């Protein structure tokens, strides 16, 4: 067995041991997570089946001399758009996963000092990048493709093609992401003020993305008779023949209609480009991986800025009014977060995406406004609120859930200090509430301004966001204490355990429950006749009480369970 074989073999063995360790987990937790995952899969399948079903008979025998229906065209465009979005998301997430895998994982120093050449090392670790970044694509993509296959009555070759297309489709963005990560570290690793450069680049990229989206995907006014054509054009812009997502979409669609020749051509195109991407990434790694790693290790050796200087120094000054030991604990958490680029860069991306969405949503909602009447504001608010809460749930799961686990082997420091574990847990909770509120409440207000909301809708949406920030923070911190992983230093891996999954699923349940209540209150007003205004106060009160009760339970229960576990834990 050579070095590459050893890397892959060890990874397989570790995965097996990890699967076996599930047997030691609480059966209730395993059952809940498994059933929830199955429920999510089935939910996506049902939604996709329903959606594709709507288009199935739309404008039958309208196009191409009766061979294709309008529904076929719409579904094809939707699939293209979906593939383009997934490809873009994979590209972004692969940069982060590649950075963590090639530069920040604990095993890298050990592997770098082993007699493995950089190319072999890259390929060995690349397998991990691909599997780590793409399992969600498989999980979420299979129900959509299955639904599409059933809706169009696709032959068996369609399902075989979906499997064959998957690997090159996830390898290509992983190769691109790895190249970007290695190049960035190589170029920025030696720079002073690296964090500043990264933030600047991130903001610039987001601004460019926003500008591009506004220009390319501008939605037409749907009251205009030519709107359908314009909408088709807007969606059709994801169908460039130079986009890998388009090769996937075309290939899979061709296989669905039995056009094997076209499917094989598109598969060949995708495989050839994935292979080229992998080869280029391997060559780049051969030249730069070890050099970039060395630069990063060397830059880590440099001293952090002094207490009084930099963003952290200023932040710490703002914390002065807090009583000790809370102030010290908060300052410590903020410093650790700030000094881990992989942490705050993901934080920035989460909020960047949300900001891009909210800024674009005002225009989109107005475009739809003429078609659906005054209700567009209510629907726009509900959509914005749902998007904000989903991002908030990802955020609390990704960043707040690991807070207790990250104390890890250093927990004895807190254990010896003259403070109770209750204080530690509530400090994490309030830290989460304070940092998340800064962004979520700000974005809720920004969204309200974009949608020209009046005080009633503004109050409901801001109130909903505040309640959700409290509840989702408590869920993340409480469950993080209930299911800690003190052996792991990598937050991504802490979150990917059963506890993290449970936290995300429960957050989803909470979001669905409060969004339904908010939607009821927001839409009730627009009901025709007196019905809209007659019972509005009661409906609003009922929604508020429902949200308050849910939030109280979501704060109290996980925090109580987490605290009980933390106080009983022998660390």
């Amino acid at each position, binding site marked *: 067995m050579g070095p590459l074989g*050893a890397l892959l073999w060890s990874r397989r*063995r570790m995965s097996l*041991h*990890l699967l076996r360790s599930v047997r030691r987990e609480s059966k209730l937790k395993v059952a809940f997570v498994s059933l929830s995952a199955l429920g999510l899969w089935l939910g996506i399948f049902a939604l996709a089946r329903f959606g594709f079903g709507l288009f199935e008979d739309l404008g039958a025998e309208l196009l191409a001399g009766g061979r294709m229906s309008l529904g076929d065209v719409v579904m094809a465009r939707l699939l293209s758009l979906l593939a383009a979005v997934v490809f873009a998301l994979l590209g972004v997430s692969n940069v982060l996963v590649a950075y963590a895998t090639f530069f920040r994982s604990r095993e890298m120093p050990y592997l770098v000092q082993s*007699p*493995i050449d950089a190319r072999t090392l890259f390929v060995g670790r690349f397998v991990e990048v691909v599997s780590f970044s793409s399992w969600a694509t498989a999980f979420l993509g299979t129900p959509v493709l299955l639904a599409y296959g059933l809706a169009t009555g696709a032959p068996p070759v369609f399902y075989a093609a979906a499997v064959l297309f998957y690997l090159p489709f996830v390898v290509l963005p992983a190769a691109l992401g790895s190249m970007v990560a290695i190049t960035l570290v190589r170029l920025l690793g030696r720079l002073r003020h690296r964090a500043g450069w990264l933030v600047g680049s991130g903001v610039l990229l987001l601004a460019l993305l926003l500008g591009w989206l506004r220009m390319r995907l501008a939605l037409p006014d749907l009251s205009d008779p030519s709107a359908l054509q314009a909408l088709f054009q807007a969606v059709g812009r994801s169908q460039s023949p130079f986009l890998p997502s388009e090769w996937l979409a075309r290939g899979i669609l061709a296989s669905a209609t039995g056009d094997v020749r076209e499917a094989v051509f598109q598969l060949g195109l995708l495989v050839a480009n994935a292979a080229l991407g992998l080869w280029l990434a391997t060559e780049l790694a051969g030249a730069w991986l070890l050099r970039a790693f060395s630069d990063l290790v060397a830059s880590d050796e440099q001293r952090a800025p002094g207490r009084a200087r930099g963003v952290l120094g200023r932040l710490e000054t703002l914390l002065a009014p807090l009583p000790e030991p809370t102030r010290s604990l908060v300052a410590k958490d903020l410093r650790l977060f700030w000094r881990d680029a992989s942490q705050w860069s993901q934080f920035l991306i989460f909020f960047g995406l949300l900001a891009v969405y909210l800024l674009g949503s005002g225009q989109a909602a107005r475009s739809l406004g003429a078609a659906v009447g005054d209700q567009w504001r209510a629907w726009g608010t509900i959509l914005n609120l749902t998007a904000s809460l989903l991002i908030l749930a990802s955020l609390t799961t990704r960043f707040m859930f690991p807070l207790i686990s990250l104390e890890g082997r250093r927990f004895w420091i807190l254990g010896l200090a003259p403070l109770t574990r209750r204080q530690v847990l509530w400090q994490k909770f309030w830290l989460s509430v304070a940092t998340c509120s800064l962004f979520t409440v700000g974005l809720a207000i920004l969204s309200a301004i974009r949608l020209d909301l009046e005080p009633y809708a503004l109050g409901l949406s801001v109130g909903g966001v505040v309640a959700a920030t409290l509840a989702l923070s408590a869920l993340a911190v409480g469950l993080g204490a209930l299911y800690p992983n003190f052996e792991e230093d990598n937050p991504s891996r802490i979150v990917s355990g059963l506890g993290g999954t449970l936290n995300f699923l429960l957050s989803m349940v909470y979001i669905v429950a409060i969004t339904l209540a908010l939607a009821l209150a927001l839409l009730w007003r627009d009901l025709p006749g007196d019905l809209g205004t007659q019972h509005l106060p009661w409906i609003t009160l009922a929604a508020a009480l429902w949200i308050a009760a849910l939030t109280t339970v979501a704060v109290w229960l996980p925090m109580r369970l987490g605290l009980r576990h933390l106080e009983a834990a022998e660390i």
Partner: protein
Amino acid sequence: MIRTEGLSKRFGTKQAVDHLDLDIPEGEFFCFLGPNGAGKTTTIKMLTGLVRPTAGRAWIGTHDVVEEPVEAKRLLGYVPDHPFLYDKLTGREFMRFVAGLYRLPAARYAERVDELLATFELAHVADQLVESYSHGMRQKLSFASTFLHEPLALVVDEPWVGLDPKNIRAVKTYLRRAADSGLTILMSTHTLSIAEELADRIGILHHGRLRHVGTVDEIKRLARAAAVDGAAEGAEGGPSSSLEDVFLELTREADDEAAALATAPSTVVSA
């Protein structure tokens, strides 16, 4: 076997290692001493390929660590102070993984693995996951895996943390025997009594520069000479001084030199 010429590393404005010239011949047990931040770990990181030198060169055998890193590393074994081990592998699986990294033939691996696991008293836990190991057991597994490919040069960074007295004795004996059989060892440690007991030669690194090199007796003689020069200032380092006294004396002397250099320009200006 381990050689450096003008090896230097600068981190921003800080010169961590400054023109280090070192030549450790085959079979020598060389101990690196120095206060915290002296540049020992940075030197080791350069020798093991984790950090590239800013200037100068280093060789393991005949292989330049920058130009031929894979060949150099194949001859090298490295035991860090806090070893990385895969928690979700068993001890035996970790040994097999290391054998793969070093391209050890299957037959040779089969011969060596049980012998090493027994030598480092790990045979009874070899099929347990590493996550269940104590710190000392992890350190012993790190040693066992390092010797698997029979390195010609060994770099050891403060290896005694977590080992009990019995294991310290066993590891010391094993290392000394290995050096006597031709293994070249470069060990960085703060445990001066162990350095005194094991080392053929000692190098004292301070502020990134190699201040003194020699056998334990030569180093002690140097310290005595320094003590005579600095007697009026109450320096230690009499004829029966321990290596600890000698180390403190020589590093104090280097600190005094550095302080004198730092104040020199202002003296010139005021003159």
